[in-house]
């Protein structure tokens, strides 16, 4: 590297954000709005809101394979082919298996989105808040390390991000998923409303709510309202749901302070050998493989959990021989996902004369009730929630006996109601669930391959049994017929809630980040994506990443102005 002074000046910004996904987009917006000249580095291609949503209006019959992935592509991509959202309409939003290889010490499905907006384009948009049930759990149970923050620290930031993102939901008054700044909730259907009422009668500790969801039931500045097409994952030309592309990046751009560079793979973070502060980043051009450096006063690392940790591990210096911020030795440890291996269905007799209209882009949600208030489980800690829904089939079960005119007649009828429940279980942080760097294998950009070694352990597997049994018990008690365990099986990682590996904590000896998401020892470097998580709770995590990011930027800029960074 030989950079002259003029180049260095041209490549210097107030702040650098690594990644443009759900948390990187928030970092960019907040930094730009606070007046910092901000460079956002995205390793993938540009993807313009609206104009690059090529399949957003394509009817199913116009896809060459009716929106299914052809066999050849499935064979070449066994990992992403296991993801429910990988379809012909969305296939170019998923990183193909061969593009970014990694080593699976145990089966782990790493689903990645390398484009502007990252996975915020294809996310499932469930946005329940966490509560102190979650933030206090490690400390109360002596698991891993204590979160350095509590709900009250994050509460105003939840409100802040909800108001901007646009979260639809009902104020249900439940402590385990605190109410937020909600747009009007989406409807429940007749069976769901019935279920909610009966559930409360038969199981007073349980509630069914409409999932808080980042779809706009009312329009916001240039976005929405949601038209209930339920094609969100293709990118929404109406801006009906929250993504970096529709919301945070346009807001950042509007300030005039944003510069976005694509095809920029961050290789490492540069450290001042004297102060041990971050001075900038080293970048590999994804296409030309040319190496460049960019400089800034503060750096936000938001490359998505595993890539953020990879960048830290690959940032080797005299100060940090074992990886940046790894004085504690815990960098890479405590990898978590959720456990969704519990799907139960049942049939409902009744409401034959009731139906619904439109395509609701969310489900109902049965929040955590295990190891909560009066409930105490003997063989596992923490708990789970369910994503639930009632729906009517097309045609009746008799169709399997039929052929010809009788079959067509049957399939033109609205069939009976069914109920689906998918358990979403918390995973504990374990030192043994970890990622390390390969010593000899590198990727196309010269980065070492990540070796992933993680599995569900006793607590998760005991909870999994209860997720199935408790669902079956509820459906039986509420009068559903033909209640069945659907045998859902997903590898670790496939719930795409990978988190941890650079956790927040109170003590630099046992954590990578402090309570403001600063790297211990390098206070002008912030990690605010899933890598920072100290535990996993059972709620979908993205809203919490957003709130942590906005909070950390606020702190960072105040510190910068006080000249503390």
């Amino acid at each position: 590297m030989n950079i002259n002074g003029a180049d260095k000046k041209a490549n210097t910004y107030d702040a650098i954000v690594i990644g443009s996904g759900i948390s990187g987009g928030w970092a960019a917006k907040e930094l730009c709005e606070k007046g910092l000249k901000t460079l956002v580095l995205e390793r993938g291609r540009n993807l313009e809101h609206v104009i690059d949503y090529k399949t957003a209006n394509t009817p199913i019959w116009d896809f060459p394979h009716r929106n299914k992935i052809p066999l050849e592509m499935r064979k070449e991509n066994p990992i992403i082919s296991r993801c429910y959202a990988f379809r012909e309409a969305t296939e170019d939003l998923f990183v193909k298996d061969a593009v970014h290889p990694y080593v699976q010490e145990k089966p782990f499905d790493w689903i990645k989105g390398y484009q502007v907006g990252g996975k915020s384009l294809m996310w499932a948009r469930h946005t329940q808040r966490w509560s102190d049930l979650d933030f206090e759990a490690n400390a109360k149970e002596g698991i891993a390390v204590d979160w350095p923050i509590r709900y009250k620290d994050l509460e105003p930031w939840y409100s802040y991000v909800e108001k901007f993102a646009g979260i639809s939901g009902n104020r249900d008054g439940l402590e385990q998923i605190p109410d937020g700044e909600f747009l009007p909730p989406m409807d429940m259907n007749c069976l769901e409303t019935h279920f909610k009422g009966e559930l409360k009668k038969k199981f007073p500790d349980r509630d069914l709510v409409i999932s808080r969801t980042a779809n706009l039931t009312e329009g916001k500045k240039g976005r929405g309202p949601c038209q209930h097409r339920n094609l969100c994952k293709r990118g929404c030309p109406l801006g009906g749901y929250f993504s970096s592309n529709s919301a945070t990046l346009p807001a950042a751009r509007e300030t005039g302070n944003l510069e976005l560079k694509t095809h920029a793979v961050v290789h490492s973070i540069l450290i001042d050998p004297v102060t041990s502060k971050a001075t900038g980043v080293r970048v590999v051009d994804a296409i030309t493989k040319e190496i460049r450096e960019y400089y800034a006063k503060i750096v936000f690392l938001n490359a998505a959990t595993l890539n953020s940790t990879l960048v830290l591990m690959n940032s080797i210096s005299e100060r940090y021989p074992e990886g940046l911020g790894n004085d504690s030795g815990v960098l890479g440890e405590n990898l978590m996902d959720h456990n969704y291996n519990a799907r139960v269905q049942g049939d409902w007799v009744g409401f034959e004369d009731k139906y619904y209209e439109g395509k609701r882009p969310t489900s109902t949600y049965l929040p955590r009730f295990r190891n909560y208030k009066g409930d105490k489980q003997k063989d596992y800690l923490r708990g789970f929630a369910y994503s639930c829904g009632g729906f009517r089939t097309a045609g009746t079960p008799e169709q399997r006996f039929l052929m010809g005119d009788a079959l067509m007649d049957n399939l033109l009828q609205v069939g009976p109601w069914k109920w689906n429940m998918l358990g979403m279980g918390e995973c504990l942080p374990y030192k043994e669930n970890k990622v390390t760097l390969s010593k000899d294998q590198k990727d196309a950009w010269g980065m070492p391959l990540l070796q992933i070694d993680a599995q569900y352990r006793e607590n998760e597997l005991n909870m999994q049994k209860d997720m199935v049994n408790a669902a079956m018990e509820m459906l039986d008690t509420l009068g559903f017929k033909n209640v069945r365990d659907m045998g859902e099986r997903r590898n670790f990682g496939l719930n795409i809630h990978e988190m941890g590996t650079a956790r927040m904590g109170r003590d630099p000896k046992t954590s990578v980040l402090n309570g403001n998401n600063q790297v211990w020892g390098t206070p002008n470097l912030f990690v605010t994506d899933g890598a920072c998580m100290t535990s996993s709770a059972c709620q979908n995590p993205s809203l919490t990443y957003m709130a942590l990011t906005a909070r950390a930027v606020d702190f960072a800029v105040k510190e910068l102005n006080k000249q503390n960074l």
Partner: protein
Amino acid sequence: MKRKDFLRLSGSLAVGTVTTAPAFLVSGCEPVPPVPRETVTEKDVPLLNDIADAILPGKDEVPGAKAAKTGEYMFMMYSDMLKEDDKELMLNGLNRIDADAFELFKSDFGSLEKEKKEFLLKNYHNEAFAYGQQKAAGLPTDDHFYSLYRSLTLSGYFSSEIGSTKARIYNPVPGGFTGCIPLKPGQKPLG
């Protein structure tokens, strides 16, 4: 299951039909027995369309599987989507249908009248149902080609333009979601 067994089965299920089969025979030029194909090709699309249409025919204002070009879809699935064992199942099924149509009616399947097509398909349907019962009882059972044709017919038809717009309520931009409304008599399912 051997073809001879099928003929016995079809005879027993459709009482008297096989004994009356000779009445269907057309006199005149000597029909040529079909040559089994070695692979499914685009030339089989009309046959696949006929099979699909026998499984899912049109009704009133709702066009059926043939009008929805379900045969083209099935051939696309054969070419780009099916694994080897299912490809073989599709191939063997077509050869079997040709052979049965010739043996029973001295004709190719496509030229048969509607009720003869249905007669054959109905027997395959029953056969496949028996396979399913066997499988459910835990007995080692092959897959039946009819089950594959049926499932492809349904997935192809209901993802086609006709199936999506005529056999379902087609509303690509619903605007909102209403949770609980009366189901009108005769209302079709949402697409």
